[in-house]
């Protein structure tokens, strides 16, 4: 190997190398399709992965077994700004974009999907609506506590008789003087048992008879706010899911989010954003199941060969890898479109539907690759399967995603 010594150039040695920095930025904005994550995203993935393997790995099976939310974990998450991913720096958040947000959720969920869910619901369903529709006063009041994890947030729309058919919700806020009196019950609220504040979607009726749907920011300390039973779930057991009851709960004008009649729009927009998070979560779980399968099939010897040498197994790996790659592209594309401020309802529904479906497929096949060992609780495979299933249901079922996609297509968004 020949080393040519560089000719002596007149270089300003101590100068900061802005040129290579700006060259990199240019590359990132290259209009030609660029599938290569930039250095910042690479470091982000690396950093969050390391954090997850260090902090979440030991607790993931425990929170699943005991169905408890781990507050110690919450404090660790606060140290890395995980409770304020998109919150502006002035409120104590990291002020990152949608792709960074997705990668963070993906990497947390790869190790502990329950934690991924709590963090995702907080950031995209609880914090995001305040960021987007909150008044300055509401932002000042809530964002610093939310970004630092002192307060955890959630979003509540589903009711016993209104799941997919969200327009049928029954919770009603009647105007009384300058505020509203809210009555009704909500179910399946993610972070229900741990959230200090909830974004609640409800009907309203004004004194002069106007009706519609509205969004409130409710504090769990308000009179008439009651947390119901903790659901005993199949998966995502480390995430708290409860019902919430409202009994003559008085809400002043300060706690109305956006315009009084904006409730439905806020809910739909928020769910669009949330769906990228759920897709990222599913992707993380799928990735974990796939990585285990690759490693295991190379090590497990049957018929004198690693089982990876059998086409019956290796084709499963090929299918898993291809599905993950596809899901990733959908997730990052939807996130990219959101960064650009475009309408994402179709793309968010696509990535949510596809990622959650392949996560269910892959986690199921991963158990198959592991045989009997995969079925036992000593390995995390059966947990991945139970966790992945939830992604096909919440924030709109797969069927509802297909409805949204097809409606968009038939409306001309082909």
């Amino acid at each position: 190997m020949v080393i040519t010594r560089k000719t002596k150039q007149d270089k300003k040695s101590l100068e900061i190398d802005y040129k290579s920095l700006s060259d990199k930025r240019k590359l990132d904005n290259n209009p030609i399709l660029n599938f290569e994550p930039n250095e910042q995203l690479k470091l982000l993935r690396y950093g969050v992965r390391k954090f997850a393997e260090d902090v979440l790995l030991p607790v993931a099976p425990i929170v699943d077994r005991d169905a408890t939310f781990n507050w110690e974990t919450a404090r660790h998450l606060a140290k890395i700004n995980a409770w304020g991913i998109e919150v502006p720096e002035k409120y104590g958040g990291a002020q990152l974009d949608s792709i960074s947000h997705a990668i963070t959720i993906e990497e947390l969920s790869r190790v502990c999907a329950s934690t991924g869910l709590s963090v995702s619901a907080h950031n995209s369903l609880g914090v995001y609506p305040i960021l987007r529709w909150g008044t300055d006063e509401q932002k000042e009041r809530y964002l610093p506590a939310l970004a630092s994890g002192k307060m955890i947030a959630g979003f509540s729309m589903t009711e016993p008789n209104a799941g997919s058919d969200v327009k049928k919700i029954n919770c009603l806020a009647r105007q009384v003087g300058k505020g509203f009196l809210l009555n009704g019950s909500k179910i399946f609220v993610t972070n229900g048992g741990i959230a200090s504040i909830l974004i609640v979607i409800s009907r309203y009726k004004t004194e002069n008879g106007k009706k519609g749907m509205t969004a409130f920011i409710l504090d769990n300390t308000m009179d008439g706010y009651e947390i119901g039973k903790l659901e005993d779930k199949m998966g995502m057991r480390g995430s708290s899911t409860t019902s919430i009851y409202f009994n003559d709960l008085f809400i002043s004008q300060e706690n109305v989010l956006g315009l009084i009649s904006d409730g439905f729009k806020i809910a739909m927009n928020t769910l669009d954003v949330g769906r990228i998070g759920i897709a990222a979560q599913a992707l993380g779980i799928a990735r974990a199941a796939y990585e285990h399968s690759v490693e295991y099939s190379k090590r497990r010897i049957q018929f004198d060969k690693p089982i990876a040498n059998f086409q019956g197994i290796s084709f499963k790996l090929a299918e898993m890898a291809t599905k993950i790659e596809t899901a990733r592209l959908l997730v990052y594309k939807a996130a990219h479109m959101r960064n650009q401020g475009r309408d994402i309802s179709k793309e968010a529904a696509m990535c949510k539907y596809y990622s959650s479906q392949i996560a269910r497929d892959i986690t199921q096949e991963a158990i198959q690759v592991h045989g009997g060992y995969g079925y036992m609780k000593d390995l995390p495979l059966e947990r991945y399967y139970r966790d992945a299933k939830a992604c096909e249901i919440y924030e709109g079922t797969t069927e509802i995603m297909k409805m949204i996609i097809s409606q968009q297509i038939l409306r001309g968004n082909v």
Partner: protein
Amino acid sequence: MVNIFVLIKQVPGTHNLEIDKKNGALIREGIETMINPDDLYALELGLKLKERYGGNTTALTMGPSQAEFALRECLAMGVDEAIHVCDQIFAYSDTLQTTLVLKEVFDKIKNYDLIITGSQTSDSSTGQVPYQLSEALDIPLITDIFSIELKNGFVQCQRNFGHESQNIQVELPIILRVRKHFNKPRPLSLLGIKKAFEKGIKKFDFNSLNCPDSIDGCNKSPTRVVKTEKISLQRKNEIIKGTITEKIQKIIEIIQEHGIEKIWVGGAHE
């Protein structure tokens, strides 16, 4: 105000490196990398000392262009500045050549109080650089400390030495070589990661350092890696049949085949 420098190295993130069949060197291109694990403890100490006493922290590495990524990680952890010493001519430097370059760097920087290093790198495990740098810069080196305080230009630290614990007081500047598990490196925060890419990285190369001609990593490194070989430990199975005495006899034979002359059986004492 203490001026703290932490020396770091980017190392392969795996132990399964392939070897180039042509020149016997490790293939480092295109593989995952990480900050040398020991160096994270050095970084953490640097950051802690800054939090306690104020000052400025700088991460410094000599390495190929991709080592910039490791410096970004240091910035994300919270160091104030990063310096990248990089030139084609520094490639293949052994520890002595590395030290000579680092000496040039510190001669240029002039204003340094504390240079902190890890104990060794996971890819070559020599642990020599801190000792050599201490010689080259003619400043004291303290190793294996378990507590440290800074006071009016002095460092007071406690150090483990075999069965004794030493209290040492020494004037700055010094080099500290810290052990793993001295403290726990902090995780990267999302905000830190973002901020890391808003900062610039100072670059030094052969010319900007005005290096003497004695610096030439490839041709003037006294250490030569003649060959790198993968070793694989393979266990052989052999089922020994027969009566118990026959079995023992056979085992003794096998052991003796491996050149072991004297064998005591059954815990007998002479």
